[in-house]
């Protein structure tokens, strides 16, 4: 299963809601404002580093670029993907659930 999260974890509870239910080993793609969750040096970085050990966490590169963030500012263990890989993930991982 592929979980999609699109809101900033500083503003909304959707990423937390997803992490509470998504079984270990499932995949989570952060896109739109959720890409801020993948940043180094924030109050959430430690929790996200942990989450990346139990889940496959991806982050959408064009949404990072749009916001002035680059690969170097991203937490280790979070995998940058472009839109083509986003499409591949939806094909490869089974049912897609959006956490809205």
């Amino acid at each position, binding site marked *: 299963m592929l979980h999609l999260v*699109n809101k900033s974890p500083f503003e909304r509870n959707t990423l937390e809601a997803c992490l509470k239910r998504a079984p270990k080993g499932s995949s989570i793609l952060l896109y739109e*404002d959720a890409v801020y969750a993948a940043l180094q040096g924030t109050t959430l970085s430690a929790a996200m580093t942990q989450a990346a050990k139990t889940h496959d966490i991806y982050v959408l590169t064009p949404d990072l670029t749009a916001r002035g963030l680059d690969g170097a500012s991203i937490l280790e263990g979070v995998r940058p993907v472009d*839109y083509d890989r*986003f499409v591949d993930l*939806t094909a490869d991982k089974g049912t*897609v659930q*959006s956490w*809205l």
Partner: protein
Amino acid sequence: MKYAILVNEGPFNHQASDSAYQFCKHALQKGHEVLRVFFYYDGVLNGTKHSAPQADDRNIVKRWSQLGKDYHLDLAVCVAAGLRRGITEEVVAPGFRITGLGQLVEAGIDADRTIVFGD
């Protein structure tokens, strides 16, 4: 893969419509099929022909119409949600059609993947 796409939010105010568009474009370019793009909730607002954003900005409505034309997409606007929000036959943009909510469920049955873009 056959995709059904649900767009929950209108143009500009939320990125949801942009993300859905980018996803569809890339999926189609990779040779996947998009069975239907269904516009529900405020998503119906993507279907107004009166949208005229500034010249230096993207035209989200026209862009959907064009993608629909290029790939023979079914751009389906929910009639009930549209009535609430003033998206009726009088204002619907080229390439979009107004239809019932059952068409979303049908698309979900026929598609390999259903993906929701929202707020």
